[in-house]
């Protein structure tokens, strides 16, 4: 989305919309800043090993509680979400000041932040799932902000479908896990420890939950949605798709580590998928010329790295993951915001069209350079410590240290190159003409990247601060046991340092040759037969085709066929049940009924026969009516005057209405051409329906009738409801809610008829 090309005047901001978006931005900022201060004040308590919890009863009958639980891991995430959120709320209204609907975006962003906080603090798995899907839904709205753009709509839907489907799979895993462990509380699960590994459902649970985590955190093969989500405005990408939402999956894996981790399956799946994602994404990052896309792929790479380290058991590997999580959030968010500033200030973010911005944007340049150096892992930035720790952790990965080391070095070298391409080259390369004359961003835009980049430097200079306050408690909650983490810039000359040097040299080499590498990657990509994005399209098309096919199959639009299916199902299901449950009983004795009832029965039978034989439609209707009258008279004879009266009146109305309708239809038999064969079919079905209904009635009346309810109504009708007609008292008092539902149905049916008739008239007029 480019800010400069607004052609739709209705989307251009008015002074009023600018004011509301600015106001919404401040609301978000103060909320986020307040939350940050609150969470920061809890750091010492949590670092001391305590956990905070709040509980609200949610669905008491099902035993669900809305309980929140903050330990080291949750606190680290909560601080990142609210802290980075504060800068995003400052940045967004300025960045989108030209757009009329910026305030809408800010409001959704606030909702997103709250959902994300709920996700990382929820103790109940069901609550976690709900917050998880809330972040999916809000991110759908945020990615599709520019909804006039077909590409933005497609990308938003893709993100929704991929992460939403993953979330549902994860829910299945949660339900399995909850029933296997006997609790839905994460804190209790953690206390139970490793017993689950021996459970029969362990592997299904693991796979289901990991699919949820992998879709959310864009692991191969679900990685394609994340770069596409860059259709969102840049600050949104900075917030959702680098620092917070995509880390939801990482959070889940870290949370599940003490519950599901520690098995070979866990270690192998996470290490292999994570390593593959990291390497593939870092290569794809080099391929991009769009700075934002390059950053998106490095995010995928970072997520892969985090997944890889979470597969390990060793404390140092987990410490590497947690430290890198913090490092990555700081520099990646800063760089995204810098790219937004470049886009805003120059009108492009295409790498070849940028250069020499350092003079025009000194503050941004400083922030970008600091963030890029942290990303590349130069001392004394926190990124350096993170990288050293990564190598130390990779060496400690039990399953496959060779694979982990290779993946880490390769990915980090690419990272150095991308850091240079995104964070240094646009500012220090030879100046080129940009679509707009570059200018420095306003304070509210640069304060975010500057602060985040400065934090990366500050934390690097004073490593114990983060080590004790944030990393150590988080590692302890991932491992489920207290852990001592020491972060330092200088470890002495050892293997990780050596690997660092190798990485830097490799990275510089890649950067120097990056133009050629990009070209050859592009050529290679063009020769690939397909990619996952295309596979996604194909499967969506297949799904649509399937839906269309089954709709055509089931919804033929022929009323006769619908009725046939309905009655056939009734005959088969009811008749089959009666047969299987041994419910068929013939009455033992000839029923003892008075003569008039036989007369009524004869009337009903005669009406039925006449209906079938009638040559004209009107005769058929009247004959059918006589069937109804006969039944009504039988009701009357057995002392049910209310039922009889209603039946009689409905029958009259039915005949009148059907007469009105049918007199307009084509002549009898015209539309029913080819009826010869199907007439027999209909006959068999009709006889079958009659027989099954008779059998059902016989079976139902065989047993003794429970008169408890009848007795209650008889006893209380006059005293409690002041009415002697029990039927009516039931209708309007005892069971009035049922009646309310019924008259609602009557009303809806009437309006539906009006709708259908009017629709037909409109079509008539149109044709």
């Amino acid at each position, binding site marked *: 989305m480019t800010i400069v090309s607004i052609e739709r005047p209705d989307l251009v901001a008015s002074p009023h919309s600018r004011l509301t978006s600015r106001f919404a931005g401040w609301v978000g900022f103060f909320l986020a800043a307040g939350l940050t201060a609150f969470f920061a004040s809890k750091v010492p308590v949590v670092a001391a090993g305590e956990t905070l919890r709040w509980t609200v009863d949610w669905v008491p009958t099902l035993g669900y509680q809305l309980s929140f639980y903050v330990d080291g891991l949750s606190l680290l995430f909560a601080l990142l979400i609210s802290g980075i959120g504060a800068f995003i709320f400052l940045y967004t209204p300025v960045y989108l000041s030209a757009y009329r609907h910026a305030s809408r975006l800010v409001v959704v962003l606030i909702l997103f932040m709250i959902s994300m906080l709920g996700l990382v603090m929820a103790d109940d798995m069901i609550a976690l799932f709900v917050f998880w899907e809330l972040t999916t839904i809000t991110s759908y709205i945020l990615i599709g902000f520019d909804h006039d753009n077909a590409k933005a709509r497609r990308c938003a839907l893709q993100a929704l479908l991929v992460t939403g489907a993953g979330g549902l799979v994860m829910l299945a895993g949660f339900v399995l896990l909850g029933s296997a462990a006997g609790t839905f509380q994460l804190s209790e699960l953690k206390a139970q420890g490793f017993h689950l590994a021996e459970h029969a459902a362990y592997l299904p649970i693991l796979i289901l939950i990991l699919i949820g985590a992998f879709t959310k955190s864009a692991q191969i093969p679900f990685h394609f949605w994340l770069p596409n989500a860059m259709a969102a405005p840049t600050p949104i990408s900075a917030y959702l798709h680098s620092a917070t939402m995509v880390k939801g999956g990482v959070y889940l894996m870290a949370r599940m580590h003490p519950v599901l981790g520690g098995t070979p399956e866990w270690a192998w799946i996470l290490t292999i998928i994570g390593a593959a994602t990291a390497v593939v994404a870092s290569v794809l990052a080099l391929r991009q010329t769009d700075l934002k896309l390059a950053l998106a792929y490095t995010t995928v790479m970072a997520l892969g790295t985090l997944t890889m380290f979470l597969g390990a058991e060793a404390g140092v590997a987990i410490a590497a993951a947690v430290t890198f999580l913090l490092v990555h959030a700081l520099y990646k968010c800063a760089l995204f915001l810098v790219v937004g500033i470049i886009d805003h200030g120059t009108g492009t973010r295409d790498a070849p069209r940028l250069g020499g911005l350092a003079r025009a944007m000194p503050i941004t340049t400083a922030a970008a350079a600091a963030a890029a150096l942290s990303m590349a892992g130069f001392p004394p930035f926190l990124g350096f410590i993170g990288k050293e720790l990564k190598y130390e952790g990779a060496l400690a990965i039990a399953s496959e240290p060779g694979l982990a080391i290779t993946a880490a070095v390769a990915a980090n070298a690419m990272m150095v190159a991308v850091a240079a391409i995104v964070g240094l080259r646009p500012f220090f390369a030879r100046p080129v003409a940009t679509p707009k004359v570059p200018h420095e961003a306003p304070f509210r835009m640069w304060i975010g990247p500057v602060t985040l980049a400065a934090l990366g430097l500050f934390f690097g200079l004073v490593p114990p601060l983060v080590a004790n306050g944030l990393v150590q408690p988080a590692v302890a909650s991932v491992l489920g046991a207290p852990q001592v983490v020491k972060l330092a810039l200088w470890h002495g000359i050892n293997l990780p340092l050596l690997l660092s040097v190798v990485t830097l040299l490799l990275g510089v080499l890649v950067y120097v040759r990056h133009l050629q590498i990009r070209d050859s990657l592009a050529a290679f990509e063009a020769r690939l037969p397909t990619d996952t994005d295309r596979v996604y399209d194909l499967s969506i098309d297949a799904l649509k085709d399937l839906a269309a096919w089954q709709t055509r199959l089931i919804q033929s639009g022929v009323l006769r066929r619908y009725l046939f299916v309905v009655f056939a199902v009734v005959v088969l299901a009811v008749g089959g049940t009666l047969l299987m449950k041994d419910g068929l009983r013939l009455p033992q004795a000839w029923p003892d009924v008075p003569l008039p009832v036989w007369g009524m029965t004869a009337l009903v039978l005669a009406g039925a026969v006449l209906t079938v034989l009638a040559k004209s439609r009107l005769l058929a209707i009247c004959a059918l009516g006589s069937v109804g009258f006969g039944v009504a008279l039988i009701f009357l004879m057995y002392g049910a*005057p*209310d039922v009889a*009266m*209603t039946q009689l*009146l*409905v029958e*009259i*109305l039915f005949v*009148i*209405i059907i007469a*009105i*309708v049918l007199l307009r239809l084509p002549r009898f038999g015209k539309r029913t051409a080819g009826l010869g064969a199907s007439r027999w079919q209909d006959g068999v079905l009709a006889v079958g329906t009659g027989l099954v209904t008779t059998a059902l009635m016989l079976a139902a009346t065989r047993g003794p009738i429970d008169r408890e309810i009848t007795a209650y109504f008889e006893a209380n009708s006059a005293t409690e*409801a*002041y*009415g*002697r*007609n029990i*039927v*009516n*008292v039931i*209708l*309007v*008092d005892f069971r*009035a*809610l049922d*009646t*309310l539902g019924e*008259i*609602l149905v*009557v*009303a809806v*049916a*009437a*309006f539906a*008829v*009006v709708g259908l*008739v*009017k629709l*037909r*008239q409109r079509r008539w007029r149109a044709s």
Partner: protein
Amino acid sequence: MRSLILSTAVHLLFGLMILFSLFLLLRGHNLPGGGFVGGLVAAIAFTLFAIADSAAAVRRVLRIDPRYLVVAGLAVALLSGLFKAAAGMPYLTGAWVHPGGLPLGTPLLFDVGVYLTVVGSVLTLVLTMEEER
């Protein structure tokens, strides 16, 4: 085609049928009848009127669109349940007063709602189809 016999008979019977429908509605609580049956009788009266005369004549007699009758009926039935609900009792609990020993309660109001909904729905259906030519 207009039948003189039908037309004359319906004009004579129409008022009686409406009166009878109200009679059924009111006596329903103690004797066979009630809002649903009463509504059906009234609906048949109007429908016969529409066949004997015309849909336009029914609309003239009725004065308001039958769709409003449906809405009014549903609203009356819905609201009749709120009297006791406001006092914290379950929705649709009957509230009763006894002016001069005659029990009057919200169930009667509810029955009036049923009556109006039935008349309105049937007439909406019949008139729409009658007018569709």
